[in-house]
């Protein structure tokens, strides 16, 4: 059996700034022709990792290989979308596009098609970007980055500030890139992005804590205990850790506890069900990380 060479290979990557080390020995392989998702909470270094792979930052130690080259030598092989750090507010959308078009020799004129797919009003390209909403800026950053024809796309939180309809449209654009054989490495907070991924790597403060296909990772997540009312479910969930939203409190079913014993309380609106991608995010980002520590 032959093992395909990864498009991106990261080994023992270390990167720090004046206030400490952000990446402390990260290892990651990004399979060619697939979509790999980096998921993790704010501040764990997902953007720094992407920036190092893109050549926007230099590693303090470790190795990064992009199609067998250093990031510096691979700048024409990749396109990097960096949220909130590309556009100049005083320039119109068209002018921002023109600037980046002149800097990358593989830029095409696909930006209009991409913007149309993302429901961006093309006439707004005549407006200064300072007048754009956060979602409009994200769409423009995406259009600029995806209109470059390269085998590798590095996208930093491309779905942040987008509504769910646009997220789905973006997913179809990214899926078509994968069909064309291109490689995508994407950072995200949005559990819905997991549907798109071939591989998910969960990033925590101590590096990549879990990696695998969404199905594999989801299968390893315990059942979820969901409470609607005042029922006390803390004793039934792992570590007593509850995650709350507007309607529910939820936790992961403790080992050795049967679902029936949890839902059997009279008058309590408690259910046990299979985990969703949101639960998977909570499990690997919050619960597993605490265990690993």
């Amino acid at each position: 059996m032959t093992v395909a060479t990864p498009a991106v290979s990261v080994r023992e990557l270390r990167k720090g700034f004046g206030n400490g080390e952000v990446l402390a020995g990260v290892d990651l392989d990004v399979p060619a022709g697939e979509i790999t998702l980096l998921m993790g909470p704010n501040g764990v270094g997902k953007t720094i990792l992407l920036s190092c792979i893109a050549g926007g930052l230099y590693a303090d130690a470790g190795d990064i290989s992009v199609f067998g080259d250093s990031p510096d030598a691979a700048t024409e092989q990749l396109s990097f979308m960096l949220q909130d750090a590309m556009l100049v507010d005083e320039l119109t959308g068209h002018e921002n596009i023109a600037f980046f078009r002149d800097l990358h020799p593989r830029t095409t004129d696909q930006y209009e098609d991409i913007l149309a797919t993302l429901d961006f009003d093309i006439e707004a390209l005549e407006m200064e970007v300072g007048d754009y909403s956060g979602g409009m800026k994200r769409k423009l950053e995406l259009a600029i980055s995806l209109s470059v024809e390269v085998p590798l796309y590095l996208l930093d939180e491309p779905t942040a500030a987008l509504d769910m309809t646009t997220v789905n449209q973006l997913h179809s654009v990214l899926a078509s890139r994968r069909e064309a054989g291109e490689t995508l490495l994407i950072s995200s907070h949005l559990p819905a992005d997991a549907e798109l991924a071939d591989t998910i790597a969960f990033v925590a403060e101590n590096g990549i804590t879990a990696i695998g296909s969404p199905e594999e990772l989801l299968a390893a997540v315990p059942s979820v205990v969901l409470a609607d009312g005042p029922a006390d479910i803390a004793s039934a969930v792992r570590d007593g850790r509850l995650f709350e939203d507007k309607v529910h409190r939820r936790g992961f079913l403790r080992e050795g506890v049967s679902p029936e014993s949890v839902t059997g309380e009279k008058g309590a609106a408690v259910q046990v069900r299979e985990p969703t991608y949101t639960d998977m995010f909570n499990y690997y980002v919050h619960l597993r990380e605490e265990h690993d520590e």
Partner: protein
Amino acid sequence: MASRSEHSQTDTETTTHSMPRASRWMTQTKAFALRNLRAMLRTKATIIWGFGFPAFWYFLTSLVFLPDSGDVSEATTLGTIKGSTAVSLGLFGVLTVTLVAFAGGLSDDLTAKRYRKLRSLPVAPSADFAGRYLAGVAVAAVAYVLVLLIGLLDGATYTLRGPLSIPVVIGTFLLFSLVGVSVAVLVTRLVGDSELVVGITNAILLVSYFLTGYNGMNPGLLPAESHWVINVAPNSLAARLQAWHMTEIPATTPVGVERAGLTPPALPVSIQFVGLLVVWALVLGSLATYLMDSAVYRGEGGE
């Protein structure tokens, strides 16, 4: 650890998408020039401080400090004095744009982490610097001409000394602009905080103006033993060179008077002084180009 340099770009120019190196450099330079030109012209601070303030200062100077025509010595005329004052404040506007506005733009890009994206692109750092310089020159030219025009409306007279005066005036303008943007890169590199960058470049602008006797237009403000400074410092050197080539101001103090016009010291009219400005521009320009590559690109500027 791999790092970017001008050479690394050459190495990657082997794809079917490649274009001649010079052509790509020109395209990138144009991109940076247009981007920064547009951004500067749409920034209120540039309009107010780069265009408005030098013009206002000229008005104020003309109204309050310049003598009446009856009080002007025989060695010169009020029109000539107004002309040299306009040249001096025009170059003050040039330095406002090329130093303060330029540093503000570069500092904004660094602070906003835009260089994380720019470093990921096959960009030549020298094209970045050249493009920013051209944008600065274009905006500075507007600031400069504006003050000269206001001076003209106020009665300033401009007279070219001869055919050589045209290249000297244009050359000193370009060289002085290069000095301004180079110092801007230097300050931006040394000072990380964008607010501090604006404050320090403003301080350099004002201190250089006053310490050289209003860009060399009022040498009497300096003690005699310091007069040499105004024919050496790039701001007053450029202003005095231009004032001589664009007005009928005398180059030396007429016999029988202690002081007249812009003398003593004698105006820097010889070719050696043009050479001195070239040296200033080349030394600082080379340093700035080196810093753009080594500090901003390879050195992770803004981090």
